[in-house]
């Protein structure tokens, strides 16, 4: 299997895992472990912890594959969302007053995807995706990174940056819209390409 599977290949892999095929889980690991580790490492900034999180995330896939619905999103999306949310949980555990422990439940909610993003990810390499991120105005890119890699809600971002909640949310919306534009994704997107609200 190549490193960018077709939906058909992913569906078969998921089914094999669900029937108890450990080799299939190994194939899934071979395909996505390096990206999963990159995500965890970016969030927790500690290699030992990041590898533990990747290990635990693939065990979660093994234990909860029956809840995965291929009609809602790709297996890759689900795996990486589990890794991201578990990593955020780990970071949040060090912050006072933050609710933790719903990482896996959240992952099921957030698996929904959109074919245009899937197509862009399948078409482009990581360098091209990074280049598209670099086209964003600083405040939008920073807001997106605080959200996705920092695990902050838009309300927390508003507090961190000393801006209104609506402005923080607006930066996320505009940032994603501009990213879509940079990646030449053509279906519906927020209308404005402005730099801030």
């Amino acid at each position, binding site marked *: 299997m190549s490193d960018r599977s077709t939906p058909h290949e992913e569906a078969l892999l998921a089914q094999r895992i669900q029937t108890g095929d*450990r080799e299939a889980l190994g194939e899934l690991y071979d395909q996505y472990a390096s990206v999963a580790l990159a995500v965890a490492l970016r969030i927790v900034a500690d290699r030992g912890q990041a590898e533990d999180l990747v290990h635990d995330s693939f065990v979660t896939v093994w234990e909860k594959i029956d809840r995965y619905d291929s009609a809602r999103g790709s297996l890759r999306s689900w795996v990486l969302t589990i890794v991201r949310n578990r990593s955020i949980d780990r970071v949040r555990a060090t912050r006072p007053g933050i609710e933790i422990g719903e990482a896996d439940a959240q992952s099921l909610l957030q698996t929904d995807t959109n074919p245009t993003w899937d197509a862009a990810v399948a078409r482009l390499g990581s360098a091209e995706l990074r280049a598209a991120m670099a086209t964003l105005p600083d405040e939008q890119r920073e807001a997106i990174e605080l959200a996705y890699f920092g695990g902050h809600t838009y*309300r927390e971002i508003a507090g961190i940056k000393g801006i209104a909640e609506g402005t923080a949310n607006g930066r996320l919306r505009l940032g994603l819209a501009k990213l879509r534009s940079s990646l030449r994704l053509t279906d519906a997107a927020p209308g404005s390409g402005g730099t801030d609200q």
Partner: protein
Amino acid sequence: MSEQMSHELVDELAAAFALGALDADEARAVAEHLASCQEPHEEARAALGASMALAMSLEPAQPSAGLRDRLMQTVERTPQPWLAAAPAPLQERPARARGWRDRLLPRLMVPLAAVAAVAVIALGVLNLNLQSQLADRDRALRAVADAIASGQAAFRVEGQDGRGYVVDTAGSGSTLVVADLTSLPADKLYELWLLDAAGTPVAVGTFRPSATEPAVVHVEKDLTGYTTFAVTVESQRVDSPTLPNGADSLVMVGAVGS
């Protein structure tokens, strides 16, 4: 925030939802709204999946050599709850083929309980208008029931349009039963395919959903040598098939075992 959200608020929060930047209650409310709402929500749906581009933009990091082995060791002693709770395996039929299909068999026996349930439901529904009109269907379902009773292999086929089972009725082909199919326009029908390890497809039968009956397809072809079931939506029966590779037309898949 468990109350229903307005369409406007869902659109406003969609980017934050896609980036995991909502608290748990808000995220749940947005997800529930999008799952049930008939409005297009173009902005919201356009944002879904954006996080994948962020994850894939990172430079991949090579895991240490021992991590894969550690994972495999953990998995080996970690039961999958649905398999652990399964009833004792049913009697295995005499081996007909060797290789990975044989390795899959013990795991694929597990869905037999669910197959039995599907078959019972199917037979119950069928009783509504059994007798003369549905003699062929009745025979097919009886074959399924007999196969289950004798412990023959059953394989799950599932996807966005429904789920069902194929029962290998040794010596007389196999039978697909699907009980919860998505309805189709009048000019469309479902096509069942078999694929070999090289991915070569063979169209083996068409069927249509019904509000009151399970779909039943009898497959005369021997399953030996085939690895995959697939179901597509077609406008008409394809006699010289080339199975599309796109997700839009491939609506159910399943692995063939022995």
